């Protein structure tokens, strides 16, 4: 005989204001099998939990129904409560009467009725619940960090310092990411390379860190604690173990017309190159799109000059498969393409540049050696106009992004300040919609640009830019003055919106990690679990989760590392016992379930069965690996003969709930 206890939570006024909790408890108390029904202001409080524990002991309850918030919120809490009282934690059901009832209804009578129906369904289900025991699966003590920018490097260093092995997979030939391309960093104006490159070297020299540069993740299998990841190591046509990074080949290569990606195509380099002086690993690679030897079979200069014989034109991509306990996505961002913004003349004049291009034009290792020269005629620009929010905060214009890119206000203040500092005879104008500087010492920094450096900030946007006679005619609006300023500029800098790196989309598919409509990775909880993906064992670091500056990225990278360390420091993790189980008598071996399983948890085995006529027959039946199954239920839907069932969510239980709702 079932002895079920029903506990209805007020959640302060969250539930009680819309739902008559006393009536819910009273009505549910009359359901068959229910021996106790009561309500309480905060069921999740210590005294609320004590009440549940005592009731289980005193009333010898065989099942518990809690009408409260979403099970995503407190199911884990209440399972522990139930377990403390000696009841199997899976003999608990939660009826969500907050998110799916009180919060979405206004009419008290209707909401109360709905809460009663939801409670009744939970009672019907708990009557059929069976005790389940969670298994354990081992944890591989190694982490994979995808992306070798500042986010990935910091996460890897923090995990490695805790004593766990980390692999960094970076698609480019060097780690360093976008930060390596920056000149100075706000708000302290220290040089980006000076603070980044020591970290790159630390990562390279750390005995626990293994850098797989020029590599990409190709497939991900397994689950939290034991992911199996296939990594494509792209052919760099240079033996990484032999190359000393002397750079002789990069000077002798006759193919000189290769746009230099590190300088964003503002200058050229050779077909064999080391991305930049402090690259890690400092190993050359050949760009097969430009190398004469790889394209026509004639040349071979680099292999002749190489003193250690590192050049290998026959090198092929290789695939490596490795196991990891945790995966961190740190795929970063890039500026959006501005080709649709014809009014800003980007692409029409070389003197209209993006902010990232300006970083290279101001950097000592950049195409101009650190002297600010405009790209068209290599003269000093005397009038410079900055345009903010180019593609940011654009809703439904089909060109930009709806969000604020967050970093532009600060880097533009930095650029304006640096230019006024170095070239005081330059006039600098900034067209802005709002100046957003919420950060430590950020607003002070922006005010310094205005007050100490005399940067002209103009409230308004730029309407159009017309290249004419070597100048750029900028027409904007000054909303506070009610004017339409027209400025003849020498250089225009566009603060292009940032977007997630395009590799993130395919990676999210491989990881089954969810993304928002802008292709930023979604966090498990926007406030309380900001560095975890909803997919167990997958963590988020840096701008792949949303626009961020360097201090924030580093903080989040450390937070992601702490979560990874917490996972890897365990020898086993508790598995979800709500897994699929086939009824072998009913299974006809059709493979439908195997095909839909996203985790590869289902295999087939030939088994002997006794037939009704006392003969034995060999039949092909489905087998589920409970350590791999995540309990998604896809197989139970696909099975044409109803042989597949999910423990804790059996077809019978679901139908009982439906029946109770329709009663």
């Amino acid at each position, binding site marked *: 005989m079932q002895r079920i206890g029903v506990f209805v939570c007020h959640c302060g006024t969250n539930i009680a204001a819309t739902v008559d909790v006393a009536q819910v408890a009273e009505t549910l108390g009359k359901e068959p099998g229910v021996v106790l029904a009561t309500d309480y202001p905060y069921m999740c409080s210590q005294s609320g939990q004590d009440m549940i524990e005592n009731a289980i002991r005193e009333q010898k309850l065989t099942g518990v129904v809690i009408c409260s918030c979403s099970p995503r919120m407190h199911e884990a809490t209440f399972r522990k409560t139930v377990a403390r009282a000696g009841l199997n934690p899976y003999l608990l059901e939660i009826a969500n009467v907050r998110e799916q009832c009180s919060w979405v209804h206004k009419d008290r009578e209707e909401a109360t009725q709905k809460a009663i129906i939801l409670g009744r369904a939970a009672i019907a289900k708990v009557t059929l619940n069976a005790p389940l025991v969670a298994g354990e699966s081992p944890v591989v003590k190694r982490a994979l960090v995808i992306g070798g920018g500042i986010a990935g490097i910091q996460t890897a260093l923090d995990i490695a310092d805790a004593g766990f092995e980390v692999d960094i997979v970076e698609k480019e030939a060097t780690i360093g990411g976008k930060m390596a391309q920056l000149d100075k960093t706000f708000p302290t104006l220290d040089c980006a390379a000076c603070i980044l490159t020591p970290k790159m070297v630390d990562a390279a020299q750390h005995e626990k860190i293994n850098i797989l540069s020029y590599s990409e993740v190709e497939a991900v299998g397994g689950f939290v604690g034991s992911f199996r990841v296939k990594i494509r190591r792209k052919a760099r046509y240079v033996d990484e173990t032999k190359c000393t990074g002397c750079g002789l080949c990069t000077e002798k290569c006759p193919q000189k017309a290769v746009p230099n990606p590190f300088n964003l195509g503002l200058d050229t380099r050779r077909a064999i190159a080391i991305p930049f002086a402090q690259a890690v690993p400092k190993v050359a690679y050949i760009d097969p799109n430009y190398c004469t030897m790889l394209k026509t079979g004639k040349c071979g200069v680099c292999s002749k000059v190489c003193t250690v014989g590192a050049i290998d034109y026959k090198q092929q991509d290789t695939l490596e498969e490795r196991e990891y306990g945790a995966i961190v996505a740190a795929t970063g961002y890039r500026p959006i393409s501005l080709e649709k913004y014809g*009014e800003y003349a980007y692409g029409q004049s070389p003197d209209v540049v993006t902010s990232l291009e300006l970083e290279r034009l101001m950097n000592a290792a950049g195409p101009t050696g650190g002297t600010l020269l405009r790209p068209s005629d290599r003269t000093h620009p005397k009038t410079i106009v900055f345009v903010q*929010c180019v593609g940011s*905060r*654009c*809703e*439904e*214009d089909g060109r*930009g992004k709806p969000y604020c890119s967050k970093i532009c206000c600060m880097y533009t203040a930095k650029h304006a300040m640096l230019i006024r500092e170095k070239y005081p005879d330059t006039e600098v104008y900034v067209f802005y*919609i709002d100046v957003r500087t919420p950060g430590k010492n950020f607003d002070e920094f922006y005010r310094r640009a205005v007050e100490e450096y005399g940067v002209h900030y103009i*409230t*308004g*946007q*730029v*309407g*159009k830019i017309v290249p004419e006679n070597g100048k750029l005619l900028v*027409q*904007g*609006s000054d*909303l506070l003055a*009610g004017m*339409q300023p027209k400025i003849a500029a020498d250089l225009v800098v566009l603060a292009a919106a940032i977007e997630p790196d395009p590799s993130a989309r395919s990676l999210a598919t491989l990881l089954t990690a969810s993304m928002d409509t802008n292709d930023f990775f979604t966090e498990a909880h926007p406030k309380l679990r900001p560095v975890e993906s909803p997919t167990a064992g997958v963590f988020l670091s840096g701008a792949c989760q949303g626009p961020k500056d360097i201090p924030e990225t580093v903080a989040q990278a450390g937070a992601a590392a702490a979560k990874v360390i917490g996972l890897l420091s365990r020898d086993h993790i508790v598995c979800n016992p709500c897994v699929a189980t086939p009824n072998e008598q009913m299974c006809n071996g059709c493979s439908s379930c195997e095909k839909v399983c996203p985790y590869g948890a289902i295999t087939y085995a030939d088994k002997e069965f006794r037939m009704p006529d006392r003969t034995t027959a060999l039949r092909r039946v489905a087998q589920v690996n409970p350590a791999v199954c995540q309990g998604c239920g896809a197989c139970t839907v696909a099975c044409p003969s109803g042989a597949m069932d999910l423990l804790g969510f059996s077809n019978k239980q679901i139908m009982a709930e439906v029946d109770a709702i329709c009663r």
Partner: protein
Amino acid sequence: MNDTYLEYQAEILRMTDRDPKRCMICGKCTASCPAFSEMDFHPHQIVGMVERCEFDVLETVEGLWHCMSCMACSERCPRDVQPARFMDAVRQWRIRKQGGEHLHPQQVPEKIDEATPQQAIAAAFRKYRK
């Protein structure tokens, strides 16, 4: 709020099919406007006045008649508010408010000259008659 003004606002929003609350006052429309120097009030201000129901001011705005409907503001608006539609709608509202039949179909033949595109006649009807 004046009920008549709310009716005016509803009429203009029906004509524009755009929400002026989406405007973030970036000023790109006004920055783009080739008739800026002729206008007493500028595109972003017209959108704002409709949003704030300032029809007493809109009744006297002269800048409306300097708008050439080049649509640059609508083309470049980052939030698809389409200020040009507001310009046009407020113009129609002003004309309709004068009352009476300003263009009767019977008057059309005498007003036609060979150079007038048919489109312009159709547009005149839209503007003069509700």
